[in-house]
């Protein structure tokens, strides 16, 4: 295990993951002290610009936590979060950033220990990846500039219409597997992404 202390930013939904984090505390389950949490009502609130901005502002890794699929407090917000996450992953890949720096996962309100497991593993993995840019072999300053631009790009109207279409097709097809969602997002956003960010730096 690496000695590097990664900076991890988390976006947790109020009803499941945030509650799971609280219950981990009540049970005194210990985990690495690297995570900083932003509470949201639902993981579906995740704007694609948030994780990109987080990395741009200094995070080494971003975690998004919601309710288990099918158990969203607001019916299907976590599915929409998966759509957003797919766009973030695709953007990271195009920037040459290790996609392992971004994770979306689930823990129910009753699953304090599960939350701890997820965060512990994710933090350990982020430590191994090291500071942003290290495992990528790219100058971090340059990378953060690109991420800042990417966060602005995430607010682009055409790109967001692509996300809307991906979300719509996901709901219609009712296939919520990550690979299918990634495919949908790629189909709908590829053109705009290539236009705005490029194919890949690699």
């Amino acid at each position: 295990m690496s000695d590097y202390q990664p900076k991890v930013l988390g976006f947790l939904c109020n009803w499941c993951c945030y509650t799971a984090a609280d219950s981990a505390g009540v049970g005194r389950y210990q985990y690495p002290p690297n995570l900083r949490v932003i509470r949201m009502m639902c993981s579906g609130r995740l704007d694609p610009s948030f994780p990109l901005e987080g990395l741009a502002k200094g995070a080494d890794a971003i975690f998004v936590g919601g309710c288990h699929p099918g158990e969203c407090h607001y019916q299907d917000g976590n599915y929409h979060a998966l759509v957003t996450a797919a766009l973030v992953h695709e953007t990271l890949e195009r920037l040459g950033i290790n996609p392992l720096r971004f994770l979306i996962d689930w823990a129910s309100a009753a699953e304090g220990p599960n939350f701890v497991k997820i965060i512990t593993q994710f933090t350990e993995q982020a430590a191994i990846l090291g500071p942003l840019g290290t495992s990528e072999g790219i100058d971090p300053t340059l990378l953060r500039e690109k991420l800042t631009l990417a966060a602005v790009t995430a607010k682009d109207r055409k790109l967001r219409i692509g996300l809307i279409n991906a979300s719509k097709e996901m709901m219609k097809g009712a296939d919520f597997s990550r690979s299918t969602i990634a495919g949908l997002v790629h189909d709908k956003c590829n053109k705009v992404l290539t236009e705005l960010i490029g194919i890949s730096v690699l």
Partner: protein
Amino acid sequence: MYDASISNSSALKAVGAVLVVGGGVAGVQAALDLTELGLKVYLVEKSGAIGGVMARLDKTFPTNDCSLCILAPKLVEAGRDPNIEILTKSELLSLDGTPGNFTARIRKEPRYIDEEVCTGCGQCTLYCLKQIGDDYNENLGISNAAHIDYAQAVPTSYYIDAKACLMLNYQTCGLCAVACQANAIRFNQKEEILELAVGSVILAPGLGRISKEVLGRYGWGKFADVLSAFEHERLMCASGPTNGAILRPSDHKHPRKIAFLQCIGSRDQTCRNNYCSSVCCMYAIKQASLAREHDPNAEITLFYMDIRTHGKGFDAARERATAENNFRVIYARPPKVEDVFDGGLLLTWATEDGKHYYEKFDMVVLSQGIESPDDAEQLGQAAGIDLNSYLFARTDTYAPLATSRPGVYVIGAFQGPKDIPDSVTQAGGAAALCSGQLVAARGTEMTKAVFPEERDISKEEPRIGVFVCHCGINIAGVVDVRAVRDYARDLPGVVYSTDNLYSCSQDTQQHLVNIIREHRLNRVVVSACTPRTHEPLFQATLRDAGLNRALFEMANIRDQCSWVHMHEPEAATAKAKDLVRMAVAKAAHLTALPEQRLPVTPAAIVIGGGLAGMTAALTIVEQGFPTTLIEQGDTLGGSALLLTADRFGRDPRTVMADLAHRVKTHPLISVRTKATVASVSGYVGNFTTTVAEKSGTEVINHGVMVIATGGRPYAPKQYLYGDSDRVMTQLELEARLASGRPLSAKMKQVVMIQCVGSRGADLAYCSRVCCGQALKNVLRLKALHPELTIFVYYRDMRAYGFLEDDYLRARELGVIFIRYAPENPPKVSHGRSKSSPLKVVGYDPLLGEEVAMETDLLVLSVGIVPEDPSLLSRMLKVPVTADKFYLEAHVKLRPVDMAVDGIFVCGLAHAPKSMDETIAQAQAAAGRACQPLDQGSISPEPIVSHVDAELCIGCGACETFCPYKAITIDKEVKPRKARTLTASCKGCGVCAARCPTMAIDMGRFTLEGIRAQIAAFGTETGV
């Protein structure tokens, strides 16, 4: 079995007020539930402050949550509720009249300090010359005649101990009167006799203490290092006499070897407390765990007779604690504690195999039991109620909260030894019964809470106040709180920063209001525990200070920081600073948000037609709200119909038949059998449920829902069950015992095995009721055939509470109980032929060898499996535990609420429990469910979406994705624009995340707010 509501034709109109005797957690919860149901409350408390025993606890099991932290918000809420009149230093003298129209005579002793005037500054204590033992700290510390019980006490007012005060006794001193800047000292105050008109009465006097004489048998009072559990609790507590250090009273050194002795004053005929106190096994585990937290190297030993951790999740918590903390657990009861010359305490004990041991310990903690209150007889007389042989209030299995006197209810420990959640549950149940009894008088005595007008801060620059909480040692034991406070002072927008020992206490609330006013704060950040539990408390304080409640933010530096990074104080402090910085950054972007009031559909749905569901439905309709009862089977009654006798010999089936009849004939209840829930939508106050029946589907609008889906017996595969006619479950035995030919005359020997499928691989949990059921059936068998030989193989005989009487009786009748270890259960095989008696081989710890016996009948005590909750829990978005029981919103203080507002749970769907416990819980669920119905409207948090019409392009994506149809495209206006339907919006924010032009934003969780948090995250801490 139920109190009928008071007839309104009587000449006297019922009074819409309730007397609650006792201000512990049960009484306080009852008071809060009552005012929510429209009844005024007189809360009569003997001591100088409400809070009771729970306020003296450091932590609560099984979660080791900080006791005062979860209690304080309730105390504060009770203290600020204009409809709860708290009468301290008071007691009930007599109760005259009839249900609906009681007159209670109350004696109120003087406090000698005017509650209304006292500011709680503490100058009087500082100047008081007379020292007294600190009762709150179990006399381990010193207090003064002029004092307050504890810093967070409600009312936040000092009082003078009349017995000790020099002025009152010798007309000398009087320094406090000089020191008091508020001129609150009143030496001439006299005792008052009050006559209160109330409609009903709830008795919640709490528990009595095991006598000093009984504790003395174990060396307490003689050897300094023998502590009662209450004393140990105070030693562990940050606000205790040693500031949270566990030190031996004799030499102030940390004990290296600690022993916990169980059943002190419980299960003990010599002190006439034959009953089991039900809570000590679990609290000893808690205390031992905390002792371990205090000293990682201490050797900790627990001596048990049986380990009775029968509550929900208790076994799991105990097993984890025992394994993680390396506790030594010994099944033995050391009879005494001896002093040896070099300062150690000598324990001798014999284990079940007859071997004798002795060992020296540094400290011995006595897990003292629960007694009925010291003045139980006096209170019983004053209230005119009957007591049982142990001087607890006498109640009935089928009306567990009703005393012998109509209109007088009993809750908490006075109803029988119990833990906090059960007390809180009973509080809710009794409030519901009062509300049903006084249905016509509800609202007649209420006054409305008034808040000052909100200050318009829209034109002000952010003036943020930061309050960093120590939470005793919960936070400050890990995080450098003062460093965080100082750090916060320099953050942008912060004009004030301070730290509090307990931010949630009542005096701190007043302090907060003062500081907000004094420094003209317009945003408040409390850096403490989790907003999920404490945000409402602080938001109410903001309103008291004239600020909109949306101008509040919390940094969670306890549950998500100090508690999870206990061994990394520096990293935890750095994290706390980061979290505060992020919260402050967000706070700067907070704006005042308008409140909304939404109407409530005054109707309920109860799912499940068993004992819990029927009781809940009746308790709701008695409060005047129509209820639909949905049962998937074709008859009402549920699993209680499997029982043929209770422990008093009555047949539950006749009770169930009566209940079912009352349900079916009640004009406000609509029963749907063979019906299931097809879908649910909406939110508290406005649910829409589709019910599927054979005849088709029906849509029902309702405001609340009670889940009472019940459970069923575990189907065993072990021990030749199904393979031999001689093997049956306890329930099958019950049926047999109620049949015409219960047992063959040839039957000589019966063997019972406990925990079949329970506490192990199949069902991980303890089913709580099986030990009691086995004992009941043992006694029934013995009554039929006194010469019958009965063996019971058990792991821990969990005859909690008064069930211990049955256990004793069974042993007196010669029933033989043999403990088996889970890894070596008894083995059962066929006899010579399939019809011959079975062979049972089991290890007998007394004999130290395997014993083979033949049995005519083998009875298996099987556990309870909940009905599969997966479909319904997903529809309702409520969590379930790993064991598939519904998970309550808070295990201690919201035991019948679900995390989703407006949904409640009771009965076996929540956890295994007995009939009386089920009834009390169903009544509680019904009472809590009626709160929004009675209020008539709800005001949800104003976190709704709003649309910037200039940016909106009318694409309709928001409308497509909104799960609640809470945002629509207004087709009337050209060009088309989206519009929020505030009443339907739940604030999830999917619309905002999908809006192509980012024209939608969310209340409190704004785009700029979150971006500010992200930016603040990136700023270096400078640590």
